[in-house]
């Protein structure tokens, strides 16, 4: 084969690597163009800022869930963890703790929840679905025990408020946090041994074991990362709302899985597209934004959202067919 042909091959494969999310990106562009035509206000800077700001809570968790799913795992506990950790941050601040200490404690608790998930999955070998579902119910229950259903409010500390509501230049703080998170997880996934190991476990667990990967440790680390990110999202949401809501994050686990799968990460594991996940999370926010802007009848919302999820996954299948064969 000539060098030219080799180069061409390399280019193609590089394109594919970054284009792993081609389907969802196409779906997203089509949707944005369509909404831009339908409503002139949709494409305003203000609205686009709103959309990104609305997408971050699901997106941050979905970055972690991308690793979990690429590892052939599942984490249903993220929504409850978000609410639980948000509550911890709020409660500590209400008790007079410094906001940074409170946030750090909250992130630590989120990580701990992840570690417990990971240990039960990897060491005790209980099915991930069961472990994380139980964790989801337990943490939500603890929230109710503590709050009796009443939100925690009065979070008036300005530096805490800035976390979820502030701007750095023209970029909203939560969006900045999300971009940094994306970069960090991207680095972990594609540039480190940890990422390789995660994908190896998802691709072929037995082979991964036989090349000397400590599967249990990697699994625990991935769940811990996801717990940490759920807590980060919880802190952002609490700051944004200036309140810790007992029902916060309900249904997030499914939004998160939808974002990851729409983004082209297979539930069968082994491959992950973090860019696709980000696009998936944005797509969900765009759909909801579009429904509100176009004032679509209440009763149709669920139908439209479900249909868009299906279409996005189909677009990814179609766009990704050449990759699979």
């Amino acid at each position, binding site marked *: *084969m000539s060098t030219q042909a080799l180069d061409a091959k390399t280019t193609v494969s590089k394109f594919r690597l970054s284009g792993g999310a081609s389907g969802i990106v196409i779906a997203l562009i089509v949707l944005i163009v369509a909404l831009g035509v339908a409503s002139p206000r949709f494409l305003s800077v203000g609205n686009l800022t709103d959309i990104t700001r609305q997408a971050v809570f699901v997106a941050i968790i979905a970055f972690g869930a991308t690793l979990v799913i690429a590892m052939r795992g599942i984490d249903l506990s993220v929504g409850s963890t978000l609410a639980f950790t948000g509550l911890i941050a709020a409660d500590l601040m209400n008790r007079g703790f410094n906001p940074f200490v409170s946030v750090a404690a909250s992130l630590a608790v989120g990580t701990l929840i992840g570690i417990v998930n990971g240990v039960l999955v990897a060491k005790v070998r209980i099915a991930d679905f069961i472990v994380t579902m139980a964790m989801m119910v337990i943490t939500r229950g603890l929230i109710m025990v503590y709050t009796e259903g009443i939100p925690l409010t009065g979070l008036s500390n300005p530096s805490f408020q800035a976390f979820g509501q502030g701007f750095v230049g023209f970029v909203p703080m939560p969006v900045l946090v999300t971009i940094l998170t994306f970069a960090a997880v991207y680095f972990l996934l594609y*540039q480190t*041994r940890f990422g*390789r190991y995660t994908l*190896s476990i998802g691709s*072929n667990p037995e*082979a991964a074991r*036989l090349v*000397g990967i400590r599967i249990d440790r990697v699994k625990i680390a991935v769940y811990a990362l996801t717990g940490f990110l759920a807590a980060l999202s919880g802190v952002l949401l609490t700051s944004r709302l200036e309140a810790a809501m007992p029902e916060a994050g309900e249904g997030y686990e499914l939004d998160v899985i939808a974002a990851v799968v729409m983004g082209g990460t297979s539930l069968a594991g*082994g491959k992950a597209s973090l860019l696709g996940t980000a696009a998936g999370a944005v797509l969900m926010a765009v759909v909801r934004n579009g429904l509100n802007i176009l004032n679509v009848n209440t009763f149709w919302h669920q139908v439209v959202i479900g249909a868009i999820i299906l279409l996005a996954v189909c677009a990814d299948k179609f766009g990704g067919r050449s990759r699979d064969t």
Partner: protein
Amino acid sequence: MDQSELALKITGVGKRFGATNALSSISMNLAKGEVLGLVGENGAGKSTLMKILSGAHVRDEGEIEVDGVRVEIREPADAQRVGIGIIYQELSLFPDLDAVENIFIGREMSIGKSPNITAPLRKRAMRECARRILNDVLSVEIDLDCPVGALTLAQRQIVEIARTLNSNAKILIMDEPTEALEKAERERLVRIINDLKQAGKSVIYVSHKLDEVLRICDRVVVMRDGACVADLPASTLDVNKMIGLMIGGSLAKQFPTKTSPGADPILKVEGLSRRGAFDNVNFELHEGEILGVAGLEGSGKSRLLRALFGDGASDSGRILLKGRSISIGSISGAMNNGIAFLPAERKTEGIFAEHSVGWNLTASSLSKFGGVRLDRRAERIQCINHIRKMGIKSEGPQQPIGKLSGGNQQKVLLARWLLTEPDVLLLEEPTRGIDIKAKADVYQLIASSAQTGKGIIVVSSDNTELLGLCHRILVMFEGEAVGMLDSASASEETIASLSIQRT
């Protein structure tokens, strides 16, 4: 040959996949009660032809006649209807169902004249029928109530044959049926094939094991590059002639010349035992030595090998590496001690199918490439080097490993472990399921690794391979090391008799 005695007649069958001609104008006959051997390198078109006969592919041109009647085979159900049954290389049984359920899957007997899917099953009748096929036709005893997943590989294969017979197949296609079988089980299969032949069934026997093909088959068809290159009675052929026809020339030499090993023992195993697996095993492995381990399935040879790699602990005994006593508690521990292991099951234990050649190649030595951040440039250079050094046919490190042939995949996996620069290389069935040329390459790679001073242990169920490749051969029987043979003086017969000694 009388036309009326033909079970199957294929005329001018062709098949293309995109630009490649997988099959071009194949014609062949199969008489009733005949066993036809079909041999060829991987990619020669054997599988494509068998898939056309079994309905997995549809031919582009040509005609197929069964019992003198022209048939259209467009899907597996068509093949079953005209009486063609296939027994796959990868067993296609339902492991959680028992033998009876498997034999009747899709053709269950139900109560009622035209039973629908909810009709109650005639379990006793099915059981009786299954028992008759297994005991009377195939003359084997199999526990009918046991989930087939718990049966041995050979028993599962027999269940699969029974399933095919139950579908009233007149023509049985067997694709590499003995690949994973031990000698005694192979003998039983040979007997079953003879019985089927007596009963007037026709068999197409696809295999890489050329000596076996010669022994079992009446006639042999050799395929190369999608065409039939020879159709001769088995009595006129020998193994070398067949290899010549398959590769379109003569194979210089299958096994490399042995060089004598060093004097220093690199690995010493003393009294190594694990209850229920192996008992009081002792041996020494020298620098540059290739040590073979022979034995039947269940003899403990694989568990011994895996125990040396930290996969499953041993209860007692010592392992000395370069004179130093080590304890191997985990796989990573074994790797840290410079031990590498190539598992037998390439697909389920070896490759990461979604990922590239490079990814697969470096999977067990990533710590060589940078600290926190992977140095992907260094990784790529290493991959390119190894691809060249190992003679791996690929488009480069970025090509998905799934697109490589089995032989090239195996070379990638071998390279994966050589990259860890091990002192001891443990190989489990290193040439299973790869074609003749690739086998010769792998043997050459193993031999040249030994020449660099590594100690190599090869577990294999192919005794010819062990004799040709190894310096010495350890024979295991029921968990015990029952003999250590010098391959220069040993023969397949001595290995076989030691392997089955007390039966």
